[in-house]
């Protein structure tokens, strides 16, 4: 009984991201997007946490997962279904997880994957500013982190804590978002990679509103190039939760 309120809230490891508007790189051209308040995990989901999840949910172990939900790289660095490789830090972010598995993990915690706008909105905060989009030092640091190899093997919490109290939004891994597949930046990846205007209804919607934000450009390009069954070495996730109205 005592633990009931704690369990049902389940937000000890989450922080509230206050409502606000921001100008996304892509979307409704120049319109700012309003992001309602929501909760976001303080840290990315770790190897250890994901291990506990697959132990409790055998269908999501790497030998059991449906081919529909993950390609061959799903948890492919793990020793076996329920053991991490020796060199893996249990507190490092889990990676090589498909979008389907990430979504299931969050659903199981009574959470959900953050929307892309939610993620971008929370990620534009530096240590001291809710919106550091124009802070060139902050943006330069993000771009530099993208060029640093193997950051995914470091434990969560090893980078900076942002304005909202959230760690590692940049610098460790890239993260799945619920609607990553709403990025229509190029033609289908199996084609030539050039924007094929015939491929998309309302194709003209693709226009960068803030090309200065090179780091954001890289994230959107990445999202536009991946599929939900992919497992990628530097791609992990964290969960979000809608704030009570």
């Amino acid at each position: 009984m005592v633990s009931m309120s704690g369990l049902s809230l389940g937000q000890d490891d989450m922080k509230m991201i206050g409502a606000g508007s921001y100008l996304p790189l892509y979307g409704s051209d120049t319109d700012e997007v309003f992001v309602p308040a929501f909760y976001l995990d303080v840290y990315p989901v770790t190897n250890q946490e994901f291990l506990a999840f697959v132990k409790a949910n055998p269908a999501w172990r790497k030998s059991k997962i449906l081919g529909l939900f993950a390609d061959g790289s799903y948890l492919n660095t793990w020793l076996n279904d329920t053991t991490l490789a020796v060199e893996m830090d249990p507190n490092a972010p889990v990676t090589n997880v498909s979008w389907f598995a990430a979504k299931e993990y969050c659903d199981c915690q009574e959470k959900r994957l953050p929307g892309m706008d939610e993620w971008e909105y929370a990620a534009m905060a530096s240590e001291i500013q809710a919106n550091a989009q124009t802070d060139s030092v902050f943006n330069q640091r993000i771009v530099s982190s993208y060029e640093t190899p193997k950051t995914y093997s470091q434990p969560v919490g090893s980078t900076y804590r942002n304005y909202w109290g959230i760690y590692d939004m940049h610098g460790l891994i890239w993260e799945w978002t619920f609607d990553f597949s709403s990025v229509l930046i190029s033609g289908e990846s199996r084609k030539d990679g050039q924007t094929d205007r015939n491929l998309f209804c309302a194709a003209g919607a693709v226009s960068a509103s803030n090309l200065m934000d090179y780091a954001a450009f890289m994230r959107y390009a990445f999202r536009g190039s991946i599929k939900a069954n992919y497992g990628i070495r530097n791609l992990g996730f964290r969960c979000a939760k809608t704030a009570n109205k």
Partner: protein
Amino acid sequence: MQKLQTNNMTKFMGLIVLTMILLSCQSEKKATVQYQCPMHCEGEKSYSDPGICPVCKMDLVRTDETQLAAEERDVSDVSIFNLSSKWKTQNGNSIELKDLRGNVLVMVMIYTSCKSACPRLVYDIRDIHDKVADPSVKYVFVSIDPETDTPERLKKYARDNQMDGPQWFFLQGSLEDVRVFANVLAVKYKKIDPQVFSHSSIISVFDKNGVLSYQREGLGENTDQTVREIQKLIVRD
């Protein structure tokens, strides 16, 4: 006293509801799962938790594993019939994708208020339908705008396009299930404003077991290749 009891009862109900939510991920299987040594070192002795056999130290296996395997064998692990999402048809009926099993499926994601690419896609589908001319093939349109595209609206769209009959399915799902389904098909879409979505123009062909067999990307492509792929699948089991 009366008040105290009511209060306790409320807490008790709350706990039941909470327990149900917490167990939801492991579904109903949890209650019946038992584990046994694969070598039957201790005869038919079973355990309620996974672990190792105290005699031969081998990992215990689930007693329902063989039965599970048999149930799942006939559905390929890449089949869309593994999806448990529920959909409403243009006739207001509830279906799951696996209800379409045994038919070659041609699927496309559209929305009815679409003015640009969708009419072309619909035209191509009708062209494919006429060339294939086989009533066993089902044509499935999944709406990417389920908030607008109610069964009634989908019914009207089907009628307006002369696509209302047993071969045609127009499906409304939840926002979440639509995104999951699109991700299975690698179809991308984004709501630009209340009336406009931007989306990939992909026609997907599935064999009778729900396995994706062919995709045609883009508009203005010839439909002949798609027709040939469908014809190959019709004669295959």
